């Protein structure tokens, strides 16, 4: 029984971590007015991490097999409940509260939104061969299979982009050459543009003032007679004004672009300086490794798709086989297999949690505003939940067969092979399009500065 309390203690710990992360990192510039959002986020995080904890327990052999199975089932039910019922409902609720028109009947419209979500969620299962037909309508397998599809797609997209972006940012080979003179020149241009905007706005302000003082304030001509009048008696100043206003709009657009370019140049200059430090050199070196890894992964994904194969053995068992058979080193396979898979799976879990949280935070900073922060955080909680559920699905492949059984038992008869294939396909698509995208972005940038 004390192990039971240990696992609930861990769960409370995860909840606290999620709570702190929310407060300190995500919502550090906003005031939390709806605590339910923070609670939902932390609960989703806690239950997702519990799944990983159960995998670790499986490997280490903590608790006995049937109680582990029970915990798995319980946890899975709760997580599915959260991901399919609670979070989408609250997303709908907060979206509806933002729209003034539907304010009165918040609950009703929130339910409507949730029903639409359920409809599309259900339809998602149709084009995919994910289930054997013997399952009933409302079973865990139905829900998990769909959640799995969404989560695996997300994982593969992020993974593909990350695999390509990582060497691109680490290696200094790709850094454009930026000198201080470039930055100064661009800043001067920016200030000149702002000066032009100011002088034009001054003219507009003066013209408005003179018109106002002369009592000739022209608002939109009202009515039929007003329209006739505006055709015949056009004030000579106003035509010039609209011309100047158009010029101002164009200049403002230009100033925005110049600002973004200047910020970009500053960032590149910082990166160049960073690459000269020791840390920078280390990352540059790592970048070469990662680029090789990335190429290898793309190659493997292509092979998997073309030859329609899914890896049968996990890396741990294969590694042990190689060392035993080819290198002739004898050691206690069972013992080492347990420890190595523990370490490997642990690393995979920690890096994927950390990577996801960092990505989510960046995303949140980029797109949230004080109005939409609640909705966006809930969306992120949804993504996080689905991501973690699918990583459990895929991590099955990295574990030796004796530990795999419980996941297979708990998740039911899903077509695991399909998920691996799907991951490979999306990974390939994502990696190749990221390469294309980065190539285009890289190509375009130097030409812009040449034109200065």
């Amino acid at each position, binding site marked *: 029984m004390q192990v039971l309390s240990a696992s609930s203690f861990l769960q409370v710990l995860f909840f606290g971590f999620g709570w702190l992360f929310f407060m300190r990192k995500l919502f550090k510039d906003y005031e939390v007015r709806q605590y339910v959002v923070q609670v939902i986020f932390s609960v989703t995080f806690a239950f997702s991490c519990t799944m990983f904890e159960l995998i670790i327990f499986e490997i280490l052999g903590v608790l006995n097999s049937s109680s582990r199975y029970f915990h798995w089932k319980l946890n899975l039910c709760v997580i599915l409940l959260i991901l399919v019922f609670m979070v989408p409902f609250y997303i709908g609720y907060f979206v509806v509260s933002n729209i003034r028109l539907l304010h009165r009947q918040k609950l009703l419209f929130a339910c409507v939104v949730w029903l639409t979500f359920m409809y599309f969620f259900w339809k998602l299962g149709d084009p995919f061969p994910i289930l054997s037909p013997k399952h009933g309508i409302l079973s865990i397998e139905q829900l998990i299979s769909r959640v799995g599809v969404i989560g695996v797609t997300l994982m593969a997209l992020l993974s593909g982009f990350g695999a390509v972006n990582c060497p691109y940012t680490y290696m200094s080979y790709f850094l454009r050459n930026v000198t201080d003179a470039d930055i100064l020149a661009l800043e001067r241009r920016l200030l000149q543009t702002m000066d032009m905007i100011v002088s034009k706005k001054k003219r507009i302000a003066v013209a408005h003032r003179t018109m106002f003082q002369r009592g000739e304030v022209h608002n939109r001509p009202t009515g039929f007679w007003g329209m006739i009048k505006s055709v015949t008696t056009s004030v000579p100043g106003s035509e010039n004004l609209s011309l100047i206003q158009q010029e101002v709009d164009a200049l403002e657009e230009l100033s925005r672009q*110049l600002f973004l370019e*200047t910020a970009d140049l500053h960032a590149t200059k910082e990166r160049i300086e960073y690459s000269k430090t020791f840390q920078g050199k280390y990352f540059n070196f790592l970048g070469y490794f990662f680029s090789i890894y990335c190429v290898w992964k793309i190659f493997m994904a292509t092979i998997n798709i073309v030859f329609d194969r899914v890896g049968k053995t996990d890396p741990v068992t294969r590694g042990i086989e190689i060392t035993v058979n080819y290198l002739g080193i004898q050691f206690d396979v069972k013992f080492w297999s347990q420890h190595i898979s523990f370490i490997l799976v642990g690393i995979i879990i920690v890096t994927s949690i950390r990577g996801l949280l960092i990505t989510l935070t960046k995303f949140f900073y980029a797109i949230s505003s004080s109005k939409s922060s609640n909705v966006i955080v809930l969306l992120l909680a949804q993504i996080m939940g689905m991501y973690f559920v699918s990583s459990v699905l895929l991590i099955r492949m990295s574990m030796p067969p004796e530990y795999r059984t419980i996941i297979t038992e708990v998740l039911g008869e899903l077509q695991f092979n399909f998920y691996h294939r799907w991951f490979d396909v999306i990974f390939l698509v994502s990696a190749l399009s990221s390469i294309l995208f980065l190539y285009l972005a890289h190509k375009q940038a130097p030409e812009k500065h040449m034109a200065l």
Partner: protein
Amino acid sequence: TASQELFSLCALAGVGKSSLVHLLCHNQVLGNPSWTVGCSVDVRIHDYKEGTPEEKTYYIELWDVGGSVGSATSVKSTRAVFYNLLNGIILVHDLTNKKSSQNLYRWSLEALNRDVAPTGVLVTNGDYDREQFGDNQIPLLVIGTKLDQIPETKRNEVLTRTAFLAEDFNAEEINLDCTNPRYLAAGSSNAVKLSRFFDKVIEKRYFLRDGNQVCHFS
């Protein structure tokens, strides 16, 4: 030639600076506020010492420098370009969001320390230092937006808090709602405070330095 003052508006994103600037410059409500990228400028014509025989008209440029205090250093370095010719600073915060007023301290430090390179070391870590604001020569004004979204019951508490805030900065404060021009209607106390603030800036810029009047708008 006409004279000009440069102001800078500092605040978090989403606080309502663009609406505020539009209201200050055109006496109209901004119809479709959108996300501000980089910096935007607007011009207001101000009558210095209105109603007295020494009335003169000046241009006031309001520079709306957007973004967040926690931005990347590259964005901060780019923003520093705009802090060069400041004559006054308007700090804008959102009355419904306590954290935006806490950020004001960091904003003012960023703007006032413009002589220090943005990547240089600031002595304080954003903590408020009263002496720094005591002998600060640049006039400050604190404006709180979204007043209409505060329910009546909470208003007193919020207004007390903002009064302390303004005192910290040694500045006047105005609380308003940018979607309603009546807060700045002529003759209202807010309009008077605003006028006085702009007058103070003009004085600091032109008169107290050499006692002679520089050119004015005619």
